[in-house]
């Protein structure tokens, strides 16, 4: 049984589960994250350590031994646990009714001298976090995007005519600029562009095809985003992507049945200093029609 939680919410809740969390210290109190194993009755079996493989395996063995040492009635299926009513002020964020859910993948890339794109290598990353985590940083990072119903409906023309062109809703463009094109994804909880004043931020929508049953829309966009990072080694964190997307709308069901977006362009000085200078950032978003529980995770700092 695996659960991924926001420690600020769990620590702040005023109910019996919150008390258990604070008593066992089973969620982190810091930004560095924690992995712990607990029982359904609220006992902590131990922390899983990630410093190296030996410590990780040792910590897991201790946790397993602690589990085996529990009375059988605590381990057998069908245990009754009652933590009382949850704190109503600390409910989980859920997607607003009618919102579109998109899953995003963020990948840093490099160009070789011949201009070809390639995946990042260890030598592309700076000392410190970049060198320690280069294998993870090479992989795509994930993020979710929620598009409220009134926002996506504003992209669907009410009197559709093939070839008509119009600008995407300002709230959608701002959502992209401030949150969903954030190169910080996969590096931590920060929001690099939350207060960005873009030099360029536009998305035009073209109705490419329209039939009695369906509309197919194309999104073309361009962004130039830059902020200066705080601190002693202040640098400009820049991302200048082009954007292309395709949205399919079922006119009978009045539903979006397909939505894919791609942002791609040069970026400069990765947040947290893991890369200095230029790299490329590609971001791919896809509509999720039947989300798993894990895909219902709220986009950080922009659940509303």
């Amino acid at each position, binding site marked *: *049984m*695996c*659960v*991924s*939680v*926001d*420690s600020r919410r*769990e620590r702040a809740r005023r109910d019996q*589960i919150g008390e258990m969390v604070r008593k066992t210290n089973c969620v*982190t109190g*810091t930004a560095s*994250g924690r*992995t*712990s*194993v*607990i*029982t*359904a*009755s609220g006992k902590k079996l131990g922390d*899983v350590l990630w410093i190296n493989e030996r410590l990780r395996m040792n910590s897991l063995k201790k946790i397993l031994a602690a*589990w085996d040492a529990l009375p059988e009635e605590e*381990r*057998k*299926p069908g*245990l009754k*646990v009652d*933590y009382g009513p*949850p704190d109503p002020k600390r409910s*989980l964020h859920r997607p607003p009714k009618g919102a579109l859910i998109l899953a995003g993948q963020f*990948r840093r*890339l490099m*160009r070789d001298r011949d*201009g*070809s*794109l*390639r*995946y990042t290598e260890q030598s592309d990353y700076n000392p410190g976090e970049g060198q320690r985590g280069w294998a993870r940083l090479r992989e*795509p990072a*994930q993020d979710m995007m929620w598009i409220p119903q009134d926002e996506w409906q504003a992209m669907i023309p009410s009197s559709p005519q093939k070839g008509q062109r119009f600008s995407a809703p300002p709230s959608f463009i701002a959502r992209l600029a401030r949150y969903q094109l954030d190169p910080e994804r*996969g590096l931590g*909880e*920060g929001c690099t562009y939350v207060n960005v004043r873009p030099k360029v931020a536009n998305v035009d929508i073209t109705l490419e095809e329209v039939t009695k049953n369906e509309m197919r829309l194309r999104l*073309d966009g*361009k962004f130039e985003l830059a902020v200066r990072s705080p601190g002693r080694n202040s640098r400009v964190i820049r991302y*200048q*992507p*082009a954007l*292309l997307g*395709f949205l399919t709308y079922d006119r009978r069901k009045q539903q979006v049945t397909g939505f*894919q977006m*791609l942002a791609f*362009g*040069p970026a400069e000085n990765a947040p947290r200093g893991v890369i200095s200078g230029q790299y490329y950032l590609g971001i*791919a978003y896809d509509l999720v029609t039947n989300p*798993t*529980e*894990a895909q219902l*995770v*709220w986009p*950080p700092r922009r659940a509303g």
Partner: protein
Amino acid sequence: MKKRAFVYALLPTALCVSAALGQQVNSIKPDEFHSLRKMIKPQPGESRFWEIPWLLSLDEALQRAAAQGKPIFVWSGAGGPPHAVC
């Protein structure tokens, strides 16, 4: 050896999206759309933690663990559920 095979496997994808894209990217051509997306998305063996059926609710995890007789692995982060942040 494994690493070299992995790089070679990626070459055709990398090359086909290469020449057409200059330093500045003013637009993405439709024929680049799929090759770029393929390159960005997880490759075999990547993002494996997304294969885990994570729950988001500790409340639900406690109830399910009790019903199934299992311990609970809790991954916590201070900026949101960490499977989507880090």
